[in-house]
C-alpha cells in the first residue's frame, strides 16, 4: 500500500499531526493531497478548540486560521485581543492598557487616556508624570494554550518628554503575588552604549520582554505581569498594553 491509497480520513489524521506549514506544503504535492490538506478535518485540529467558531462567517477553517494569525480579535467584554501564532496555532493575547491596573491611572494629573490610530485599542495610556510607577496585567492561565512557553512583553513608546526610564524597572511574570517572585530588571529607555533589550514593532511601537512563564495545563490560576519603580521621577511613556505570546 502507498500513501495516496489510504482513506481521506487517515490522510487527514496524519497531516493534522504535522504543522500548519507542513499542511501548506502538502497542498502543493498533488491535487489529491491538496483537497485533503486544505480540508476542515485538518485545520480544525490546528485551531485551538475555543477558537473554532470564533468568527462564524469565515470559512473554511484554513481561512479562519490565517485570519486569526494576522488579525487580532477582540475578546468580549475586555480590552484584550486574541490572535494565533502562525507556526504553532498557539494563542497570543494583548492586554490593552485599559485592561491593566495602572497605579494613579484614573488621575488626570498623572496619566491621560488618548486615542491613537496606531493602536488596535480605543485608548492607550500616556504618562504625564509620576514617581509611583506600577502597572499590572492579569490573565487566567486557563485562557492560554497548554504545553506552551510564554513570554510577556510591554508594548510602549515615548512621546517627546521622556524622563526617568533610562533607569531599571522591576519586572515580574508569575502566578499569584509579585512578592513571591524574584523578577528581573528591565530598562525601557537605555542610554547610548548600554545593552539594549528593546525591540521595534510595527506602527512606531516598541516592546521589551518582562519575563517568561511555562503554561502546562492552564490550571495554575492567574498569571500576573507587572512593572514597578517607585523612586525615580518619570514622564513621557505611552503604554499600548502587555502582550503574551509563545516563545521558541
Amino acid at each position, binding site marked *: *500500500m502507498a*500513501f495516496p491509497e489510504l*482513506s481521506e480520513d487517515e490522510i487527514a489524521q*496524519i497531516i493534522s499531526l504535522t504543522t500548519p506549514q507542513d499542511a501548506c506544503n*502538502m497542498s502543493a*504535492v498533488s*491535487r489529491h493531497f491538496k483537497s485533503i490538506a486544505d480540508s476542515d478535518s485538518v485545520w480544525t485540529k490546528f485551531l485551538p478548540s475555543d477558537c473554532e467558531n470564533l468568527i462564524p462567517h469565515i470559512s473554511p477553517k484554513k481561512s479562519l486560521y490565517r485570519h486569526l494569525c494576522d488579525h487580532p480579535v477582540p475578546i468580549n467584554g475586555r480590552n484584550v485581543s486574541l490572535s494565533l501564532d*502562525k507556526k504553532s496555532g498557539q494563542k497570543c493575547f494583548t492586554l490593552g492598557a485599559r485592561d491593566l491596573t495602572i497605579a494613579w491611572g484614573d488621575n488626570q494629573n498623572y496619566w491621560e487616556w488618548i486615542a491613537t490610530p496606531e493602536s488596535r485599542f480605543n485608548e492607550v495610556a500616556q504618562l504625564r508624570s509620576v514617581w509611583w510607577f506600577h502597572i499590572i496585567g492579569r490573565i487566567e492561565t486557563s485562557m492560554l494554550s497548554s504545553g506552551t512557553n510564554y513570554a510577556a512583553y510591554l508594548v510602549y513608546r515615548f512621546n517627546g518628554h521622556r524622563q526617568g526610564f533610562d533607569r531599571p524597572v522591576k519586572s515580574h511574570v508569575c502566578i499569584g503575588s509579585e512578592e513571591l517572585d524574584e523578577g528581573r530588571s528591565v530598562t525601557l529607555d537605555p542610554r547610548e552604549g548600554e545593552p539594549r533589550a528593546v525591540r521595534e514593532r510595527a506602527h512606531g511601537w516598541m516592546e521589551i520582554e518582562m519575563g517568561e512563564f511555562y503554561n502546562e495545563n492552564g490550571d495554575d490560576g492567574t498569571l500576573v505581569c507587572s512593572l514597578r519603580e517607585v523612586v525615580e521621577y518619570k514622564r513621557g511613556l505611552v503604554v499600548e498594553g502587555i502582550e503574551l505570546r509563545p516563545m521558541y
Partner: protein
Amino acid sequence: MATSRKVTLLSSDGESFEVEQSVAVESITIKDSIEEGSAGNPIPVPKVNSKILAKVIEYCKKHVESAKAEDRVDDEDLVAWDADFVKVDQATLFDLIRAANFLNIKSLLDLTCQTVADMIKGKTPEEKRKTFTIRNDFTPEEEEEVRRENQWAFE
C-alpha cells in the same frame, strides 16, 4: 471471565493465529464482536493479511504485557520498543495504519500515523513527493498558484 481464554483469529489469506483473549480485545472491533456474541470461531479478520496481522498481534501482546508490569520504568522501554516496531518499509507502515483503523486499536493508529507525520515534517513539497513516490499532477501554473496561496504560512 477466565484470563487465559484463547481465541483464534483468521487472516484474510487464510492463516490462523491463536491468541489470548486479553490480547485480541485490544482491538475494539474484535472486542465488540465477542461481546455481542457475533464473533465466529475462528474470528475472521478480512482486509488484514497474515504478515500484517502477525505484526498487529505482536504489538497488542507487548502492550498488554506492559500494562501488567509492576515496574513503571517500563514506560520508557515501551516507547523505545514502539519506535523499533515502526521501523518497517512504507508499504508495511501504511498496511498497519489500515489494519489499526479497521481493527480500532487507537494506540497503534496514533503510533503509526505519528510515524508518517514525522516523515512529512519539515520537507518541501518536492521532498515530500520523493519520500512517498507521489506523482505531481499539477500543471506548472496550478503549482505556482498553490505556492502563492500558501505563502502566508511562511512569512
